[in-house]
């Protein structure tokens, strides 16, 4: 049975604009669903609709097999963590955590036990008598999670919970949320605009744009097999390279023609030849991730196509050095080993691993192969 299923959900505002256009998502019990996309894509609206804070214009949302369209938030068996934490400013941490239980008329002894259990789990026992104004962002974040945990709901909803934290704390809390999920096996819907959070946390990712789910799948699947140009560009950092190129046939091989200021090579593609054949002579967008263009030492296979390229800029990141070159008049990022990277102005042999490269239609931006 699906823990959460969203069936053909629309959200239409009074002025007639659709912010969600037929969303279909279903996840199993215990899965971690990420809704990711740029701002304005409708992901937060969708979360609010799951929570019951926004009305559903058409379609159904089911939680645990029960249609919840007409249930108020408190009857949906959910808990939510907000971006601003939304802790009640006049209450202590203890009161914040117990507020929801009190309203549900849980016995006092049970409330105390729950608060203590949750506080211990999140290591906030020493903060229980403080007020939100006296705590740091990270501590408030923990309390907000504690408030959700205390209720023990069937679904947790997270609305960009880490985006107000500084970078270091964000990484720490990310790991803690993942640990919590592994331990409690809870079902989570998590909204973020950060593709790294999406990749690291999710069991399933729904990449959204303009009110439409562009792709729904596992993180690795979305990374390796993006459905369209948008998904390919949104997931992955540094972003995938998109090189306009012509499909050419040389003998029995079909490949893409890549040029720099010195000359051209044809990178033969190992993809489905029947499909590629119909694009010969046409302009396509050749998508290849930075780690798939690298130095000879890092490339793990023999016999890959090599091209000597003129280096424009290098950006050392520590573990890798990013080398930027110009191919087909497009800036291309390559991830190389720090000791292998040459200096700007010099040429460098770059190895292309085209096995995972993808092609997009330049007009529709849809995936070709």
């Amino acid at each position, binding site marked *: 049975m699906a823990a959460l299923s969203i069936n053909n959900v629309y959200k239409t505002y009074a002025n007639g604009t659709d912010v969600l256009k037929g969303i279909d998502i279903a996840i199993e019990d215990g899965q971690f669903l990420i809704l990711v996309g740029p701002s304005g894509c409708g992901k937060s609206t969708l979360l609010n609709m799951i929570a019951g804070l926004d009305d559903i214009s058409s379609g159904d949302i089911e939680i645990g097999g029960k249609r919840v369209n007409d249930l108020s938030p408190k009857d949906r068996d959910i808990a939510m963590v907000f971006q601003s934490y939304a802790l*009640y400013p006049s209450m202590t941490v203890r009161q914040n955590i117990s507020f929801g239980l009190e309203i549900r008329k849980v016995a006092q002894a049970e409330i105390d036990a729950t608060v203590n259990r949750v506080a211990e789990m999140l290591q906030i026992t020493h903060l229980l008598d403080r007020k939100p104004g006296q705590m740091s962002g990270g501590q408030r974040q923990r309390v907000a999670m504690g*408030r959700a945990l205390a209720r023990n709901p069937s679904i947790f909803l997270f609305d960009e919970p880490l985006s107000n934290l500084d970078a270091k704390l964000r990484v720490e809390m990310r790991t803690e949320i993942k640990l919590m999920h592994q331990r409690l096996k809870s079902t989570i819907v998590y909204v973020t605009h950060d593709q790294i959070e999406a990749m690291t946390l999710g069991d399933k990712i729904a990449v959204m744009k303009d009110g439409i789910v562009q792709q729904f799948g596992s993180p690795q699947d979305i990374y390796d097999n993006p459905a369209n140009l948008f998904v390919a560009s949104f997931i992955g950092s540094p972003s995938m390279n998109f090189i306009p190129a012509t499909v050419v046939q040389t003998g029995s091989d079909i490949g893409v023609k890549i040029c720099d200021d010195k000359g051209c090579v044809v990178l033969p593609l190992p993809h489905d030849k029947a499909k590629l054949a119909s694009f010969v002579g046409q302009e396509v967008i050749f998508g290849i991730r930075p780690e798939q263009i690298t130095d000879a030492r890092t490339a793990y296979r023999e016999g890959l196509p090599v091209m000597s390229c003129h280096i424009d800029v290098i950006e050392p990141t520590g573990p890798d050095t990013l080398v930027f070159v110009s191919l087909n008049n497009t800036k291309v990022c390559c991830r190389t080993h720090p000791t292998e990277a040459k200096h700007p102005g010099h040429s460098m042999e770059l190895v292309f691993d085209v096995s995972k490269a993808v092609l997009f239609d330049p007009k529709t931006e849809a995936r070709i192969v």
Partner: protein
Amino acid sequence: MFNSAKNTAVQPDSGVARCSGSRRTPCTVSTPALRAPGSRTAQAGFVLLPNLTVGRALVYAALLLMAIYYLLPLYVMLTTSFKSLDDIRAGNMLSLPQAWQGGAWVKAWAEACTGVECNGMQGFFWNSIKMTLPAVAISTILGAVNGYVVSMWRFRGSDALFTMLLVGCFIPFQVVLLPMAQVLGMLGIANTTTGLVLVHVVYGTAFTTLFFRNFYITVPDELVKAARIDGAGFWTIFLRILLPISGPIFVVCIIWQFTQIWNDFLFGVVFASGEAQPITVALNNLVNTSTGVKEYNVDMAAAIIAALPTLFVYMVAGRYFVRGLTAGAVKG
């Protein structure tokens, strides 16, 4: 000695004690959170008198002058009220009483004539209390609930409703006099304190709603969302989550309403007369009732009695007033 100025000014936001080592300058302790932006130089000016420049001295002199200008009438009223009539005629306006006498106060409170009656201000003082307290309480509570609704529970037409309320703030008193008199007559509460309370509640709710709405609009609405998910209803959210953080705006609202209603003359003179008239109307009658000699000392005492409650409210709650007016976002 002057190196201390450098020490104070150059320190980054360390939030630690800052000592110059010089004997003349004390250590100043400040935490960054408590300090308003840009106040660093001002603070240095307070701590170190050597920073007193010509410009600053001029500013202080101007401030002092204005303070005297505004306090002078109060001084004249106070001293005159304690003078005897002979003293008033003989001396100059700024002189202190030759003999301090409380007789004028007693007369103003209990014996002075306000028209035909000669029972002083006391009855009308209580009239004003009986009018002001309920009117302030009711309009403030209504404003709080209204502000909560228009800021947190947007419904179709809520913006239009708020705009209409806002327009209510700009309607001059004179415009509502006749229709209001009709309404009071129909309700059978013309010329009563109850009627005045109603008038002030109706008129004041526009202002109180605006105050509370502008305060609650700064409260993140995620707070209300979180409470709804926690299972709290309309009133629980209001009473348990928003009211506890509304202290500053309540103070603003109460001071504003209290002064407006207590000091009102027009509604009082139009909608209540005789026994039910508020103290402002009575004061006018007292001053204008001439039976022989004009008793300036009694007039002054009566005027101060009429002004005392608002003075008292400002003294008790004044410092919250500015704080409340400038209260911004509630950091959650």
